[in-house]
């Protein structure tokens, strides 16, 4: 089987993290975002993966070569010379996708969930039509495009309603699809949208079905959602009883959902959790309080600091008695001075912060 991952640009919405690494290489739950997807695809029997990007991904090549070896798969990078939207990249990669007649997966690289590729493929095969899109149920459908089924049919899509004012349903497009190769005939090689153009045409012909997603779903394309998505991911690990998580029997674990890389060092009298991810080679000092935050590889949180709803970027350092909160994001190699308060600061790489950031701001 084959899959195409829509990576697109460098991921400006996830800056300042993506000033250092392209989005697919940013660690989510201590694992690069792209690896979550490659792992799940490989597990479902996918052997060919295309990454649709519109930048030169030199930094990615090393990792991708490693993953090819690790999973015994082929990874192709398909570079758009101009952005082709969400459907154009499929046409661009037509050659690989048409390698055989089996259907192929398409997924947005920003989406995190418990990827149900196997079940999706089985369901797709069972209805025999051209395409299946994964849908997830949301509380407030008015903010999204909602899917409406044909009357008296559990999965065949009748229409899409963009930002419905009246309740017509609560299933939305989760950004994961399985399509027959015949769909490629519907797409022209130009900037075009799969959601706006390709799918409505398939719906016209009664060729598009929906598949309900179990468990969590999140678009983690920006820092606020990255943190929320991390919480959902850690909760799902807890639910599964994953041994990746740090056991609650550790005296510093507070409220569970704590994922700590074995190489990280934790000081005395800390209170960590809930919803904390600590990457490799991180050093956490004494009396540190961490909750709802991500500490990327090589970062350091010094004694008595208090960190909440924050992403501490790679190799950054948080000073003693510092306090970070309200979606603060530190880029690579940022230093926060002792006793400094940062409220919603987005700090670009290699900066040193010596004065409080009292209200949300970008520190260039």
């Amino acid at each position, binding site marked *: 089987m084959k899959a195409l991952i829509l990576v697109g640009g460098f991921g400006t919405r996830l800056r300042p993290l993506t000033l250092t690494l392209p989005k697919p290489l940013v660690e989510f739950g201590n694992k690069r975002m792209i690896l979550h997807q490659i792992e799940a695809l490989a597990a479902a029997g996918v052997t060919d993966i295309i990454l649709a990007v519109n930048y030169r991904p030199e930094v990615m090549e090393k990792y991708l070569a490693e993953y090819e070896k690790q999973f015994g798969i082929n990874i192709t990078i398909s570079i758009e010379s101009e952005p082709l939207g969400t459907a154009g990249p499929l046409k661009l990669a037509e050659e690989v996708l048409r390698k055989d007649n089996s259907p192929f997966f398409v997924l947005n690289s920003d989406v995190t969930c418990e990827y149900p590729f196997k079940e999706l493929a089985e369901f797709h095969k069972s209805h025999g039509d051209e395409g299946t899109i994964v849908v997830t149920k949301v509380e407030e459908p008015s903010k999204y495009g909602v899917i409406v089924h044909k009357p008296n049919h559990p999965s065949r899509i009748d229409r899409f309603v963009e930002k419905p004012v009246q309740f017509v349903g609560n299933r939305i497009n989760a950004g994961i699809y399985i399509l027959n190769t015949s769909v490629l005939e519907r797409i022209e090689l130009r900037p075009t949208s799969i959601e706006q153009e390709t799918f409505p045409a398939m719906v016209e012909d009664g060729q598009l079905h929906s598949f309900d997603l179990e468990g969590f779903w999140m678009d983690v394309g920006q820092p606020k959602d990255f943190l929320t998505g991390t919480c959902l991911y850690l909760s799902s690990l807890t639910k599964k009883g994953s041994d990746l998580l740090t056991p609650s029997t550790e005296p510093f674990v507070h409220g569970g959902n704590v994922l700590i890389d074995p190489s990280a060092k934790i000081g005395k009298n800390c209170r960590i959790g809930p919803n904390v991810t600590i990457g490799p080679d991180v050093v956490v000092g004494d009396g540190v309080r961490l909750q709802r935050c991500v500490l990327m590889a090589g970062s350091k949180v010094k004694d008595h600091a*208090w960190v909440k709803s924050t992403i501490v970027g790679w190799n950054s350092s948080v000073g003693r008695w510092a306090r970070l909160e309200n979606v603060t994001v530190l880029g690579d190699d940022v230093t926060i001075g002792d*006793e400094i308060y940062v409220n919603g600061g987005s700090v670009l790489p290699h900066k040193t912060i010596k004065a409080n950031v009292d209200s949300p701001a970008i520190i260039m």
Partner: protein
Amino acid sequence: MSLQIPHRERSNGSSGGATKAVILVGGASRGTRFRPLSLDVPKPLFDVAGHPIIWHCLTAIEKVPSIQEVYLIGYYEEAVFRDFIKDSSSEFPNLSIKYLREYQALGTAGGLYHFRDAILKGRPEHIFVLNSDVCCSFPLNEMLKLAQEKDAEAVILGTRVSEEAANNFGCIVSDSHTRRVLHYVEKPESYISNLINCGVYLFSADVLFPSIRSAIKRRTDRPRLGSYRSSENMASSFMIDDDEDSQKNEVIRLEQDILGDMADSKQFFVYETKDFWRQIKTAGSAIPANALYLQKAQQDGSKELAPPSANLIQPVYIHPTAHVHPTAKLGPNVSIGPRATVDAGARVKESIVLEDAEIKHDACVLYSIIGWSSRVGAWARVEGTPTPVTSHNTSVIKNGVKVQAITILGKECAVGDEIRVQNCVCLPFKELKRDVANEVIM
């Protein structure tokens, strides 16, 4: 006015004449800007650098050998200063300290005049008058020396401030060579001088009371303008009206009513201090005052201060009954009051922690005053904003709104674990369970 009364013969050559000191302490209805702290303790008795504000005045007074008698004049109740005077009498055995209570607010000069007989008893040659709401090094001996050199009738302590700040104070124009005061205006509208009145004076006993008396006389003689009432109120308010006027006449202030005239007619000199000086008006101004007195104590080699260590940035005052965990980091410019506790890994900087207050583990207290028996929870952050060293202002502009720079918790307040409080003033007995910034919490 031009008549020079030959009353200075005693001052000629007799430098050993007795001197007395008066500390003007005000009353409970004054000093409202010192709230919420003055809701629980009279401002003159508030502890900065481990001691009541007026204790710092007394230590300076004690260093003048010719002073044996000190009066506190104000209109607080008698009992207010009883314990302080008792303690001070043993701490300053060479000083006799008495509280003279005004039956009503008479003004800074009116109070002095009211108690003139007590003050003049024993025929002192000089009288120091100190406002209790200033924080400075009180160079009283230097002022006395200048008075003797210049054969002065009055000496005022002056300091230079920025030109923008000057018109918030009494402004002194002086002859830079002779140091004689040529002109004095209280809080002028326009810029006159950046040499300002520090609220510390030395008067010749022979000049002070006659000057106040003539100010009272001027007040009484002055035709009253705009005091006519409408006819329907006339009859009923007649008696009260009269009484009110006589009260008003007795409110005579040194700054507004006396110093200007002295500049015109007397041998009035200014001693300009290059040392620190701050007003203690708002509650937040206790923080710079605390810092300045602690730094002075450090310079003087005071044994009271905590010794330096890895977790202590000097100067820091820790009361002997306070408990500070060895992993807590304190300083600079911190005072920890009696029986206060600072737990493991807590951080306290540029702050005053009052009696019985409790700072829990890993909490952070910066530029704040933690009230008596207040509690700061674990990992909480109580924070003010530093103001420039040269600033005489204790407010800062945040998002276009003027807020108090120093965070103040009144008596028995509680800040929950992990809660953040920034630039807030919290009245007594409040519990803070959510993050707050730039607020007054009633």
